[in-house]
C-alpha cells in the first residue's frame, strides 16, 4: 500500500458512481432517485479534482469544473424538488413509476 | 501559508511530529473550547434569566449562589438526573443523533472564531467562507430532531427551521462579502488586523454602507440562531416547543447549550467583522498594551466583552419583540434584506473605489476626511431616524392618549 495516488481517488469515485447507479435503478421514490443522482455527480466531481491535483496541479480547470458541477447540482436539486412537489400536489405520489399519465 | 494550529505550535515548538501535533491540537483546543462553550452557555443562560427578569420588573433567580449565579449549574444537574424519554414511535437513532449534530454544528464554528490575538484554533485563509459553510450544520440537527420526534408540531418546527436558515444564509453571506471585499481577505485574523488603530478603522465605520451591512448581518444572525423575533421553529405559543417538544433531560440541555453557543459565535463574528475584533479602538491604548501575553489577555477580554454585549442585545430584543409570522419572515428576507444586502455590497465597493480608505496607520491617526464624511452621513441618518421615532411616538394612538389625559 503505497502513498495515496490518483488511482485511490478514482476507485472511490468509481464505487460512488456505481452505488449511485444502484440507487437510481432500485428506488422508486423520486427524492431517493435524486439522492442517487447527487452521488453520481459527486463521483464525477471527485474525479475532476483528482485529475486536477495529480494531472496538472498548476492549473485550476478541474476545480473550476467542480464548481460548475456543484452549481448545476444545486440547480438540478431545486428544479427536481419543485417538480416533485408539484407532482405530489397533483397526483399525491412521489413514486417515479406511478407517474405515468403520459403513457397512453 | 498560515500555520493551522497557532497555539499548538506555540506550545510544542516546530519539531513535533504529526501525531504529537494532532493530539496536542485536541488537548490544547478541544478541552478549552468545550470548556469555553459550556462556560458561555452557563453564563448566557444566567444572563438571559437576569436580563429578562430585569426587563420584566422582577429579580430572576436569587436563591442558588449570589444572585442566582449557580442556578444554571443546578438546572444542569437536574437535567442530567432526569429521565431520558424517547417517544414510542420516534426514529430512535436519529432522535439520539440530532442533538449531537446540532451541538457539533455549532462547536465547529468556534474553530475560526478568535478569542484574542493568536488565540484561534485555526486561522484558515478562508475563515469567513468556512463560517458561512458550517453555519447551517446546526439546522440539519434541528431538522433531524423535528423529524425523528414523530410529532406534528416538531415537524412543523423543523420545516420552519429549514426554510428560515436556508433563506437567511443569503443576506448573511451578502454582509460577509461586503466586508470581505473591503478587507481583501477571508481570514478572520486578517480581517481583525485591518481594523487596527482608532475606532474609525473599524469596518462598522468604514463607510455608511457597512452600517447597513452590520444591521443586515445582525438580523440574519438572529434568524440563524432562531432567536426572537425569529424563533418560529420553537415558537412555544404556536408549536408547543417546535422541534424540541419531545426532548427532555440531557438531550434537551444539549439543544439549549447549542443555541446559546451559537448566539456567542454569531456575536463574536460580528465583533470580528465590524467591531474591531480584539482592538480597543483607541490606538495609543493598543500600542501601550503591545503584543505578547499582556496583549493576548487584554485582547481576549476585549473581544469576549464585545461579543457578550452583542449577546445581551439579542436577549434584549428577545424580551421586547413579538414573534413574526412565517410569511413575514420570508418577506423580510427576500424582499428587504436581500435587496439591501446587494445594494450594500455594490454601494460599499463603489464608495471604496471613489473614496478609498487611507492606508491604515498602525499607531495613532485614523481620523481622516473619509471618517468625517462617514460621520456626517451617519449623523444625518441618525437624525432622520430620531425624528421619525419621535413622530411615531407623538402620533401613537391619539384616542388612548386623549382618554388618559381627560
Amino acid at each position: 500500500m503505497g502513498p495515496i495516488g490518483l488511482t485511490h481517488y478514482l476507485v472511490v469515485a468509481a464505487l460512488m458512481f456505481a452505488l449511485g447507479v444502484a440507487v437510481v435503478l432500485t428506488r422508486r421514490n423520486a427524492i431517493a432517485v435524486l439522492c442517487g443522482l447527487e452521488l453520481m455527480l459527486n463521483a464525477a466531481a471527485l474525479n475532476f479534482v483528482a485529475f486536477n491535483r495529480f494531472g496538472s496541479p498548476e492549473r485550476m480547470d478541474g476545480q473550476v469544473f467542480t464548481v460548475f458541477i456543484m452549481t448545476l447540482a444545486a440547480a438540478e436539486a431545486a428544479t427536481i424538488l419543485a417538480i416533485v412537489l408539484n407532482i405530489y400536489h397533483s397526483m399525491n405520489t412521489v413514486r417515479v413509476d406511478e407517474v405515468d399519465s403520459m403513457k397512453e | 501559508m498560515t500555520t493551522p494550529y497557532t497555539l499548538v505550535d506555540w506550545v510544542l515548538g516546530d519539531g513535533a511530529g504529526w501525531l504529537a501535533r494532532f493530539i496536542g491540537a485536541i488537548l490544547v483546543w478541544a478541552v478549552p473550547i468545550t470548556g469555553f462553550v459550556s462556560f458561555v452557555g452557563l453564563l448566557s443562560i444566567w444572563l438571559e434569566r437576569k436580563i429578562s427578569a430585569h426587563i420584566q420588573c422582577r429579580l430572576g433567580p436569587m436563591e442558588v449562589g449570589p444572585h442566582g449565579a449557580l442556578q444554571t449549574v443546578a438546572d444542569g444537574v437536574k437535567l442530567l438526573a432526569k429521565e431520558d424519554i424517547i417517544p414510542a414511535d420516534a426514529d430512535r437513532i436519529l432522535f439520539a443523533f440530532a442533538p449531537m449534530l446540532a451541538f457539533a454544528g455549532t462547536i465547529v464554528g468556534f474553530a475560526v472564531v478568535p478569542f484574542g490575538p493568536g488565540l484561534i484554533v485555526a486561522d484558515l485563509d478562508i475563515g469567513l467562507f468556512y463560517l458561512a459553510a458550517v453555519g447551517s450544520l446546526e439546522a440539519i440537527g434541528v431538522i433531524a430532531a423535528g423529524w425523528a420526534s414523530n410529532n406534528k408540531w416538531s415537524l412543523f418546527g423543523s420545516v420552519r427551521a429549514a426554510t428560515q436558515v436556508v433563506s437567511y444564509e443569503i443576506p448573511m453571506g451578502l454582509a460577509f462579502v461586503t466586508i470581505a471585499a473591503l478587507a481583501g481577505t477571508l481570514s478572520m485574523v486578517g480581517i481583525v488586523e485591518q481594523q487596527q488603530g482608532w475606532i474609525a478603522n473599524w469596518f462598522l465605520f468604514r463607510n455608511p454602507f457597512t452600517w447597513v451591512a452590520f444591521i443586515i448581518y445582525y438580523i440574519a444572525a438572529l434568524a440563524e440562531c432562531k432567536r426572537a423575533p425569529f424563533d418560529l421553529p420553537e415558537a412555544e405559543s404556536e408549536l408547543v416547543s417546535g422541534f424540541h417538544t419531545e426532548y427532555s433531560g440531557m438531550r434537551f440541555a444539549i439543544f439549549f447549550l447549542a443555541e446559546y453557543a451559537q448566539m456567542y459565535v454569531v456575536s463574536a463574528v460580528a465583533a470580528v467583522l465590524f467591531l474591531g475584533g480584539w482592538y480597543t479602538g483607541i490606538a495609543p491604548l493598543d500600542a501601550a498594551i503591545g503584543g505578547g501575553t499582556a496583549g493576548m489577555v487584554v485582547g481576549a477580554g476585549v473581544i469576549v466583552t464585545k461579543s457578550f454585549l452583542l449577546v445581551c442585545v439579542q436577549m434584549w430584543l428577545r424580551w421586547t419583540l413579538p414573534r413574526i409570522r412565517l410569511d413575514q419572515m420570508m418577506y423580510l428576507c427576500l424582499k428587504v434584506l436581500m435587496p439591501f444586502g446587494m445594494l450594500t455590497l455594490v454601494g460599499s465597493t463603489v464608495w471604496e473605489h471613489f473614496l478609498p480608505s487611507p492606508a491604515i496607520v498602525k499607531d495613532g491617526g485614523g481620523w481622516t476626511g473619509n471618517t468625517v464624511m462617514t460621520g456626517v452621513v451617519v449623523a444625518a441618518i441618525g437624525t432622520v431616524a430620531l425624528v421619525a421615532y419621535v413622530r411615531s411616538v407623538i402620533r401613537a394612538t391619539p384616542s388612548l392618549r386623549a382618554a388618559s389625559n381627560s
Partner: protein
Amino acid sequence: MDWSTIMWWVMAAVTVIPAVMIVLSKDIVRLAFWLLASLTGVAGLYILLGADFLGFTQVLVYIGGIMVLILFGIMMTNRDAVLMRRGETTGGAMLTGVVIAAATALALLKVVKDTKWKEAAPVEMPATTARVGEALLTDYVLPFELVSVLLLIVLCGAAYIARRRPEET
C-alpha cells in the same frame, strides 16, 4: 503511514460506507442522512486533495443547501411514515439494479486499473481560493456568467413550478 494517508482512508470510508448504506436503507430520511455523511466524506477528500475552497463549498452547497432542500422535500411529501417505509423496492428491481451497478463498477474499476494515467509528481498545493476565483473570472468567465444566468432561470422556474395554483383543479 503518515497522517494524510490515515486521513485518506478515514475519508474514503466516510464516503463509501454511507454510500452503501444509501442503497441498503429502507427509510428515506435515513437515506438522506447517509447521503449527508457521504457528501461530507467527499468534502474531506477535496481538502486532502488540496482543494480546501472546494471542500468548504461542498459543505456550503450540499450540506447547507441541497441537503436541507432534500429534507424539506421529504417532509413535504412523505408524511405517512407507514407508506414511506413500505415496499420501496421490489425484488426484481433490486436484482436488476444491483447487477447493472455491479457491472458499472467492474467496468469502471477495470478502466481505472488498465489505463496508464499521467500522474504528475505530487507537489504541495498552494492556497486555492484566489486561484479558483482568478480562473473563474479569466479563462472561464463565459461559463461563469452562463451559470449565473442558469441559476436565475432555475430560481424563477422552480418558484413557478412549485407555487400553489388554487385556480387549477
